[in-house]
């Protein structure tokens, strides 16, 4: 599936396409994210595999290609920022932060253990690389807006990316924030909805329907795009283009159409896997399945 850009943002579309080598590298990093998620959840004996698996390509594209970051300098004040509303996917972010030398890699080995900075939700007080804490759904877009707004008074130039879950659209604060960002023409804000279709109690559209999502956000004054969230080349090209676009006079929203649990076949068809643990024998099979795939 290709993105559906608004006319104003479509200029230079092709120049943002990643080359084959980059695509391969980002695909491998997405696989790394999935495999590390299985490893860390085995330490905790419980965790959100599927919430990471739906977002793995977007995480990979952002942290290994699109965002302006400095390895080993998580506090660099010129960096692009990332906030996340679906904080329970942090288990897929921590391996990235260790990989980028934001904190020592051996922190991962004690994931969720007594005294560990790494828990189910990301904590900015404890984990270098976490730009804002998460855990209470519906706050992250507002936090991101604050970081963009502050550019008025700091003079710093950066972009802020915010990932929200699709179930998160049911939180009222999201729409307060959506109004505010449009009113303030926040061109440096790029939000991403991980549209994996599920929330704890079932299918999002059965629990509390949110469609038509694109029309809602357009009506709120945003530039809306849609992409296959597992097509790493398309995701990267779109996010690169939105990051580079200096003509946009409004915040951008990407509806990332994904499959919850993508990469492990039985997780893709069973919403119960929002939370769980794989016995080592099952984990072995899941790992084999992930390794065998070229998504």
């Amino acid at each position, binding site marked *: 599936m290709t993105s559906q850009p608004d006319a104003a943002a479509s200029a230079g579309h092709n120049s943002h396409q990643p080359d084959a080598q980059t695509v391969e590298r980002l695909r491998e990093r997405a696989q790394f994210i999935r495999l590390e998620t299985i490893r860390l959840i085995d330490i905790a004996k419980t965790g959100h595999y599927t919430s990471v698996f739906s977002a793995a390509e977007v995480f990979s594209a952002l942290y290994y290609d699109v965002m302006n970051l400095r390895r080993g300098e998580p506090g660099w*004040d010129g960096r692009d920022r990332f906030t996340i509303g679906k904080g329970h996917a942090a288990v897929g972010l921590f391996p990235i932060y260790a990989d980028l030398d934001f904190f020592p890699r051996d922190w991962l080995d004690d994931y969720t253990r007594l005294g560990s900075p790494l828990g189910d939700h990301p904590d900015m007080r404890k984990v270098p690389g976490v*730009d*804002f*804490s998460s855990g209470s759904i519906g706050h992250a877009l*507002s936090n991101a807006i604050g970081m963009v707004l*502050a550019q008025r008074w700091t003079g*710093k130039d950066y972009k802020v990316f915010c990932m929200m879950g699709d179930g998160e659209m049911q939180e009222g604060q999201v729409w307060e924030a959506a109004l505010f960002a449009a009113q303030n023409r926040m061109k440096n804000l790029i939000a991403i909805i991980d549209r994996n279709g599920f929330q704890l109690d079932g299918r999002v559209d059965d629990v509390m329907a949110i469609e038509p999502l694109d029309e809602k956000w357009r009506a709120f004054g945003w530039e809306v795009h849609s992409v296959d969230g597992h097509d790493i080349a398309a995701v990267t090209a779109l996010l690169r283009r939105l990051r580079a676009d200096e003509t946009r006079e409004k915040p951008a929203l990407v509806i990332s159409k994904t499959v919850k649990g993508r990469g492990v076949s039985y997780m893709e068809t069973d919403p119960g896997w929002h939370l769980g643990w794989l016995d080592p024998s099952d984990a072995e099979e899941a790992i084999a399945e992930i390794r065998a795939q070229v998504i």
Partner: protein
Amino acid sequence: MSGPKSPNSWQYRGLNMVNPGLDHLSNGLIDLVKAGHNVVAGSADLQYSNGLNRFATAYPDRYISFGISEQNMVSVAAGIATTGVVPFVATFASFMGLLTCEQIRMDVAYSAQPVRLIGHHTGISLGFYGTSHHATEDIGTMRSIADLTVVSPSDGAQLEAAIRASADWDQPIYFRIGRGRDPVVYGAGTEFRFGKAQVHGFGEDLTIIACGITVHAALEAAAAMTAAGRSVGVIDMASIKPLDRDAIIEAADRSKTGRLMTVEEHNILGGLGAAVAEVLTDEGKGIRLKRHGIHDEYSLIAPPTHLYAHYKLDGAGIRSVAEEFLRG
């Protein structure tokens, strides 16, 4: 059609003309900007109620209009604070202390962002606007949030002093303030220190520990009782968290009747009285404590001064409660 003829007529955007007390908040913030602090302010559609319109006029590029979206306002403020800019955000205390409580806990206090939260028109000072606009729980909610400072200035000069002092205070702060009509307790230039009470004497018969608008009333009551031969002191516990434990302990030690009293424009559950009671029991003081305030009920509606009289939160009322306590 011409406008109103009487100079006594007024409208919302001229509130600060009829109530100059609303200027204190903006004055404090303007002082901070002039002193070189990277301070910004915002409000959820209440800039004329809290007087921030004065700040917005002085520094239009430093004022944020949030519309009627309090939760977004608090979370945005937290995002701003991550960059080193210090945001002051204001709304009615009833909304700040209850509606945005969770955003304050997660995004501000737990995340250790030095946001300054202004809950104005606190207590029952919105009178006949009713329970939705009364804040008699905000001390309780805010003081139970770890790593959040709670301040309840008793008048405008003390508010300005507390805002000045905040420049050197790392923790996020909840300022619990009135409606700009608080009677003057201190002159301009008064000092404020976090964790330090303003002691207006310790009483051998009774020390009244108060905060906010009840400080002035407590001083009136103490003056009347002193004139009648009692030994009565008053502590202005503007710094509710951190609390000035030493002042409470000294008041207990100096009491010859074994009695202390608290007064607050707040539910007696969870507020200043509860905080003082915690110190007294921690220290094993064996003191009888009269907690006076709103007694776990929803306030009636009426003009504020009528409510203060009804709930015995004015000078005469506090005196009558104190005298009865000393007799009992």
